[in-house]
């Protein structure tokens, strides 16, 4: 049996979930724990059984299995803690647990899929299961946000499916190209095939929509803002990286960057960074600020992917770091929202005194978000910038630096007063316990390790994936 099939094991937890049961949120934690154990064994144990028609456990799959499953555990432990404190919370409902498990398994299938249609179908399932979770009965606006998320997901994934159709078209000779990623990755690029160019362009546009790249990003700030913190973290840290895997697999196909797709990634990336910088300057809502920062990160990643080659290792470091950063930040913002009942930055101050753990994680997460050393995001950004300079794209380089500087100032100006400023709301808080914050601590340790020292087995994964993206 293919060991990757063990990733379907969490489906067994569906039988212990039910309406009115007290342990629905805990069942989701158990399912995620099983998944992360299987994923870690596959990734660190170097379980590569090769690829068959449907599944693969290549380096790309193994690296991103680690990322999405560890981030997901952090998210569900947070949700479980909310449900434990207040059993009436939606996190305790059977519906959330069913949808959560379906999302988790589908996301893992996206990562290990070797067949184009299977990957696409699984990503579609993640969108269909995420949309109802965005809706909060207490927040009427969340329903509209969920609908717009769904529409953009359908359109983005539809364009991506059309892109795959164009790739498979194979020109005028009537031949069908393979639908296996491993075969496509080793098929030489034919000279001058407009269907392939169109296919890659549609894939960049479609998957870019799911990643929140300009111009199809308008769903992202609204969705991230309106969704519960755990779901926002799930979308930003887990679904983002599942979509990224699909884009990485597309870019592993020979000739993918040669046509319009490579330039499109650079242009969309820079446009996304510019849009996000302007929005970060304008917003006063902390959740929206991190949402706009996510668009910024998507832009940096798109630029790195467009460059390929020597930027590949940096892109991977940056993408993996950002999965953990976004999980840490959105979950911390969830705690802030829970205590202060507001997301307005000017209403929150003195976090480090009021909620020390939350304040600490928000502070460290913001430093990582801004690309400070010693975090992996610093090293990743540096490698992308150096590849950009080496490629001679000095205009993009200058734009990149200007936008990063603006983002740096705008984010620091807004977030740091929340941490060290004066408390705006005078109240006595319960002393914070460390236990609910432990998953964030684990993600933080991983984040620091990516900047300082990576164990050989994990570093080998990074290098193998980077090599498949053109790095020497």
């Amino acid at each position: 049996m293919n060991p990757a099939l063990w990733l379907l094991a969490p489906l067994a937890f569906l039988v212990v979930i039910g309406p009115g049961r007290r342990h629905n949120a805990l069942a989701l934690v158990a399912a995620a724990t099983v998944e992360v154990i299987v994923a870690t064994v596959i990734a660190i144990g170097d379980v590569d059984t090769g690829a068959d028609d449907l599944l693969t456990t290549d380096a790309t799959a193994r690296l991103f299995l680690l990322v999405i499953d560890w981030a997901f555990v952090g998210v569900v432990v947070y949700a479980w803690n909310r449900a434990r404190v207040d059993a009436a919370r939606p996190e305790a409902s059977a519906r959330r647990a069913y949808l959560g498990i379906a999302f988790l398994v589908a996301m893992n299938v996206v990562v290990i899929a070797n067949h184009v249609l299977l990957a696409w179908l699984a990503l579609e399932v993640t969108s269909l299961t995420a949309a109802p979770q965005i809706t909060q009965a207490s927040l009427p606006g969340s329903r509209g946000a969920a609908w717009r998320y769904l529409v953009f997901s359908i359109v983005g994934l539809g364009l991506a499916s059309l892109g795959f159709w164009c790739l498979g078209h194979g020109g005028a000779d009537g031949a069908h190209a393979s639908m296996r990623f491993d075969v496509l990755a080793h098929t030489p690029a034919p000279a001058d095939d407009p269907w392939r160019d169109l296919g890659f362009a549609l894939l960049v546009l479609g998957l870019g929509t799911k990643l929140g790249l300009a111009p199809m990003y308008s769903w992202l700030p609204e969705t991230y803002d309106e969704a519960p913190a755990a779901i926002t973290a799930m979308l930003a840290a887990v679904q983002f990286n599942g979509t990224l895997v699909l884009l990485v697999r597309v870019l592993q196909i020979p000739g993918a960057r040669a046509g319009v797709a490579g330039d499109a990634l650079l242009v969309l990336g820079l446009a996304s960074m510019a849009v996000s910088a302007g929005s970060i300057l304008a917003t006063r809502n902390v959740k929206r600020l991190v949402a706009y920062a996510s668009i910024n990160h998507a832009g940096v990643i798109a630029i790195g992917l467009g460059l390929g080659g020597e930027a590949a290792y940096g892109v991977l470091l940056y993408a993996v770091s950002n999965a953990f950063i976004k999980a840490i930040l959105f979950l911390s913002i969830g705690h802030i929202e829970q205590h202060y009942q507001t997301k307005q930055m000017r209403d929150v101050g003195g976090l480090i005194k009021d909620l020390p753990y939350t304040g600490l994680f928000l502070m460290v997460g913001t430093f990582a978000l801004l690309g400070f050393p010693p975090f992996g995001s610093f090293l990743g950004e540096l490698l992308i910038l150096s590849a950009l300079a080496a490629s001679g794209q000095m205009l993009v380089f200058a734009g990149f630096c200007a936008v990063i500087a603006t983002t740096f100032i705008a984010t620091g100006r807004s977030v740091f007063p929340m941490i060290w400023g004066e408390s705006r709301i005078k109240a006595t808080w319960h002393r914070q316990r460390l236990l609910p914050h432990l998953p964030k601590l684990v993600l933080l340790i991983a984040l620091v390790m990516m900047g300082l020292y990576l164990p050989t087995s994990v570093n080998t994964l990074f290098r193998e994936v980077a090599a498949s993206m053109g790095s020497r």
Partner: protein
Amino acid sequence: MSTALVVFVLVLLLPLFLASWRVSLVGLAGQGALMAWLAYDRDGVTTVADGVRLVDLGLVRTLIVPVALYRVMAARNTGPRNDVIAPNLVSWTLALTAVLVGFRFAAHMPLPDSERPFVAAAASALLLAMLVLASSERVFSQVVGVFRFENALALFELSRPEPEAEPAFRVGLLVVLVVTLALARWYLRTLTPAGDAPAPEAS
């Protein structure tokens, strides 16, 4: 170009000029029925995958989608008028241009002659669906846009026979379509026509 494809293009265009939600739903049903006929006429039903595709096109897209949406709209006592694109000369010109662009696109791409009319109609359908989605913030129009978009993708897939189509994938696509319909129906029922949640009732 076959008569069915000519009618398909007409079915794409006409509901855009007639501002009625019922006509929009009839348009969706017409697209489904014509695609089912095109698939049956060319391939028949020789494999399980063909059968699933016929259920998808002939049953779900032709009947279930329009009826499910009709029931929501009827239950809300919606007035007859609904513009899926803005009722002005600019929008109508854009709609006609989208069809022209779709046909020019098919004419320029390297394609076997048998596929060219399919790709022309599908590209027109896709551009018109994008126009509908971009034109209106009203939830019903967006739902119609989403299903027009899905139909356009189905017509692209129909343009070339797939000898190795796996029935399991076809079933997967069908399930995704049905779940999309269920969610679209729920949002159509629970959101105001403008896309906001209804204000909470005063106690």
